[in-house]
């Protein structure tokens, strides 16, 4: 009963909340299976803008697509020269950093998204990383957050590709997001923003499921859930391989 009341309430209110322009989205795949020979994946993200009224005049509609992998805390360490050798000294814990982050836009990001909107929706790479806990006593705490971005950009995990979303007639849009081979498992969140003159007028969110499957899944689960058996299995394989090679070569040499 309560649920039904809530539903009616929702129905009454929703037209008022409805945005004028909404995203209708399609994905080429909503799950990525990490198999033994997984070599990266390309996901096609396409959609249309649904609207009841004619296209508003003024600045054109722009589209931003951001795909983020599961976030986790990251310890960033800095090397310094001590006693003639380079050792890790200071470290900063970045509270949350996505394992993967890709942004595709239909025009340069700073032109189509104002700074305040970026702050609110955390779209740009720098904003997607949260580091409030950076200790104040360490000089250049911001350098540590920058280092996360720089290192992961070099590894192809973070990327921003401007002008890679194609928008037709302010209605249809499409882009592709490339995912590297070194993916972490989890729910990847794809966010699509429609902007006009720097402000977000509509947003849509969907998830892409990235999972290890088959043998990869089996081995990973086993290593965490039955570590003793997993270790023993590794040893049995090692001993069998050692014995097999030695016997095989002895037979080869004798013949």
């Amino acid at each position, binding site marked *: 009963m309560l649920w039904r009341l809530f539903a009616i309430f929702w129905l009454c209110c929703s037209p008022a909340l409805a945005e004028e322009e909404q995203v209708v989205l399609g994905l080429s795949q909503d799950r990525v299976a990490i198999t033994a020979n997984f070599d*990266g994946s390309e996901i096609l993200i396409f959609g249309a803008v649904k609207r009841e009224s004619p296209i508003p005049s003024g600045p054109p509609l722009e589209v931003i697509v951001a795909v983020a992998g599961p976030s*986790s805390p*990251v310890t960033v360490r800095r090397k310094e020269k001590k006693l003639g050798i*380079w050792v890790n000294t200071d470290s900063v814990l970045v509270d949350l950093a996505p394992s993967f982050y890709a942004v595709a836009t239909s025009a340069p990001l700073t032109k189509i998204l104002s700074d305040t909107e970026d702050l609110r929706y955390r779209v740009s790479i720098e904003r997607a990383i949260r580091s409030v806990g950076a200790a104040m006593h360490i000089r250049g705490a911001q350098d540590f957050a920058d280092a996360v971005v720089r290192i992961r950009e070099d590894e192809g995990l973070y990327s921003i590709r401007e002008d890679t979303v194609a928008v037709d007639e302010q209605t249809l849009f499409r882009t592709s997001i490339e995912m590297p081979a070194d*993916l972490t498992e989890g729910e990847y969140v794809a966010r699509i923003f429609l902007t006009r003159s720097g402000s977000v007028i509509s947003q849509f969110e969907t998830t892409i499921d990235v999972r290890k499957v088959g043998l990869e899944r089996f081995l990973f689960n086993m290593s965490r859930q039955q570590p003793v058996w997993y*270790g023993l299995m590794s040893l049995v394989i*090692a*001993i069998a391989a050692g014995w097999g090679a030695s016997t095989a070569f002895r037979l080869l040499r004798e013949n």
Partner: protein
Amino acid sequence: MQIYLPIAEVSVNAFLLLGLGGMVGVLSGMFGVGGGFLMTPLLFFIGIPPAVAVATEANQIVASSFSGVLAHFRRKTVDLRMGTVLLTGGLMGAALGVVVFNYLKSLGQVDLLVTLCYVVFLGVVGGLMFIESLNALRKSKKGTTAPPARRQRGWVHAMPFKMRFRTSGLYISVIPPMLVGLCVGVLSAIMGVGGGFIMVPAMIYLLGMPTKVVVGTSLFQIIFVTAFTTMLHATTNYTVDIVLAVLLLVGGVIGAQIGTVIGARMPAEQLRVLLAALVLVVCGKLALDLLLQPSELYSLGRSGGH
């Protein structure tokens, strides 16, 4: 062919791993060493996380040592009694090593510790071996053979708890072999090596064991110590990557057999000079990494739950 490693969570070329395994296998067969001291740095280099590289390499050494020790059993060149004493020390050392490893991992100093261990031990062992084998080469060219050195009767023989080791023809205290085993166990857990390159000289120069039983006995105890290390890493850190291990050991065991054949055809002194040079090159490379300013001063570590 790219292959995704389930534990390391990186994608690497399978043929590259087979090739690396094979190459290190040939060297280990030629020189009678496990090859861990070469393989572990190579794995770091191709982007395997250090913790996974060290744990997985321990597993691979089980395979190559087992393959090697079978040949020595057939030739009856394994001192089981000495092996067991070394092993007792080795297992304690390995447990200690894993504790130290995990502690330093939490401090973020594990890379430094591993690299320092490599530089120090490879430098010392490589340097000594290089000088010694060059001298031997020079002498063999002159055609004069040095008089056989007398067995030292130093502090090793003055200790209590004496035991008779028939295969080695020794009657010594069990404390020195225990200590040697302990040290090598610690190193094996920290560096992801079998420790043969330290064990073998220690057995010859410190314990005075005859050279012919040294390699077999060292292999015998390395199997157990590295198996134990593998289990410890697998149950405490979950860092043994079985797919990586299989690829490395397939290449490794085949390479080792080929290496043994090559090794048997080369003169022993030249072989030792080559091995010493190889050890020094690896040592020099690692030392440079410590001394030169790295291009990236920052590094990322996983923290908390993964």
